[in-house]
């Protein structure tokens, strides 16, 4: 069976803008990707350069309980105005991913906004995250405040800036992760 790369822009290309946060909290290569829909909704995913996706080891567990008192799984929103959703700042942890080599990675919100949902499917099937990191393996959905929706991506990189950062990494030194 032949695979094709020739196609019209994908759903993500058509309706979403890709934003990146590289080396999250100074941790080398822990890159995150934010897909912002034209309606301001943001889907948080791992960037393709994140060590979880790059190093080839399996995922042992994904845990949305980020502290004793707080689990993102308890997040509930109701009504059109999404009452009750946890409000997140850019460095709010969303979940922790432990790989089979026992290294743990924390995934962060990247933007300010109300948490609408987390992806419960990846808890049972962590392979989804490895196989389809930018679609079915998403981490969470966040709704920025209406008045902040233009600003929330200010500290993030565009796709071009991200590619530049990644290409500098490969020319400067061997892949550290």
């Amino acid at each position, binding site marked *: *069976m032949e*695979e094709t790369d020739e196609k019209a822009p994908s759903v993500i290309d058509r*309706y979403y803008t890709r934003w990146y946060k590289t080396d999250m909290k100074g941790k080398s290569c822990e890159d995150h990707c934010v897909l912002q829909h034209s309606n301001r909704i943001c889907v948080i995913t791992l960037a393709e350069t994140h060590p979880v996706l790059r190093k080839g080891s399996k995922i042992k567990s994904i845990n949305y309980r980020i502290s004793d008192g707080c689990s993102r799984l308890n997040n509930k929103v109701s009504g059109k105005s999404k009452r009750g959703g946890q409000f997140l700042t850019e460095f709010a942890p969303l979940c922790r991913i432990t790989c089979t080599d026992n290294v743990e990675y924390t995934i962060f919100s990247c933007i300010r906004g109300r948490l609408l*949902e987390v*992806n419960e499917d990846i808890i049972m099937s962590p392979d989804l995250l490895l196989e389809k990191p930018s679609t*079915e393996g998403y981490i969470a959905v966040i709704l920025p405040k209406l008045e902040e929706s233009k600003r929330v991506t200010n500290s993030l990189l565009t796709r071009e800036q991200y590619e530049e950062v990644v290409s500098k990494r490969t020319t400067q030194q061997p892949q550290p992760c």
Partner: protein
Amino acid sequence: MLSLKEKDRPIVRKLLDAGCCARCVLRFCCVGKYASYQNSCQDINKELLAFLSQADSGQSHDASGQDQADNPPCKKMKLESVRAGEEASAEPPALEAQPDAQPATCVTCLGVLQDFCHQSFVTQVCEVVKKGGYQFDSLLLAVSLPAQLSVREHSCWLHIKKELREKSMCVDKEDVVQVKDAFKWAIQALVGRELGASMLFNSAFEVSIGFTHAETDGDCHFLATACSDCFKPAKNKASVFTRMAVVKALEKISDEEFLRQYPCPPARPATKCTPLETTCLHSSVFIAGRYNKFSRELPQTPWVIDGERRMEGSVEELIAAPLLSSFRADAFNFSSSGREDVDVRTLGNGRPFAMELVNPHRVRHTKAEVRQLQETINASSDKIRVRDLQIVTREAMGRMKEGEEEKTKSYSALIWTKKAITKADLDVIGNIKELKIDQKTPLRVLHRRPLAVRQRTIHSMSASYLDTHHFTLLLRTQAGTYIKEFVHGDFGRTKPNLGGLMETEADILELDVESVDVDWPPAVPE
């Protein structure tokens, strides 16, 4: 003839002395004959005075003798009242001295039943109606009165109730003719003649007349302390003293309490009411039909983001423009059986829609005229087409939304797949029947809709092969199914989805609605 009876005599006298106008006297005597109110104030006044002066001779003003026939036990009462009248006539009647003098403003109706029942005011009202340019052959008069009229009415009622009780007569407050009705009886024939229209209580064309009386606005205020629970501030009301609240408070307050707080009879006013601007309103006309949308760049309703228009035009505006101008309506409200996205076409028989035309000035349209309007809409743009255009009732419009969830819709979609497909792959799709899917609210609408999981049914599908990566998918689904998300999966939030069923990545490149299976509105034969 005023159809007054002997028992009315002391009431007439007492009301005139208290400063009531002639028509208010008739009201409190429960005169129900429209024609009695149509005479001029002066004429009614003269008749009332003549009636009082007859007291000496003891004659009844009512020649019919109906009173006796209807109420035989009242005979004794009648005799008593005659005697009372004789006593009263010993004093010189206050108003008899100068019967032609301009009467003072009435303490009860504050002038509504005096000068405003005159031809000159009627002409003023009719001028406004004529200027409105409405087409109508009947009309309904709506009258709004200052709330304090109810307080004054109550005071006056208590004033004669005392009297009535002494004379052992039995009349209820409900038997008193309301100011509003007396006013309508007095002027409606004049209005009808001037406008060439009949007066119908259920007419679709409403002419509103209103009055205010600033001088006595304070009349109601004591009720707020006496019956505080009747006066709750409402967001959309300028004052808590609405007519409804005042009437409710008057029902609750005891006679003793009322009399302690408010003069009985009411104090004489220095001014008469001020008329409010006369307004006209024709009830809405509803027009329905089906529309096709042939463009992938035309939203159904104006598309506005952050207060800015994203695209020129919309289905509803294209349909509304010729209708608004032909019906000369002020505004419209569009509704339809579901809606399609900007980039989705609606083909086949089209999508049922209905439009409310608010305050139409020209209502009557023949079938030929409606057909002409349909042609005008269709000639105005090649992006849409309308059929079955017809005038419907508000009630019939409900049929469009009825059982919307159970209705089926048929779609045609152009699908791309990542993996190369064979005709055998497509057979698998064709074999799927009554597939239940769980859809989380799609991300593309999640910003304005609640988050929920909804189960929908894909009744059947069939696919026709185009090339190794493309095919056309025909679907029959339950209304409310999000087709785009069923195809691409929406980050796995619709399950199962077409990509998953075909074990590849699938995307939807084009979508058309082929039919909306709602059998309303009825087809209009070409």
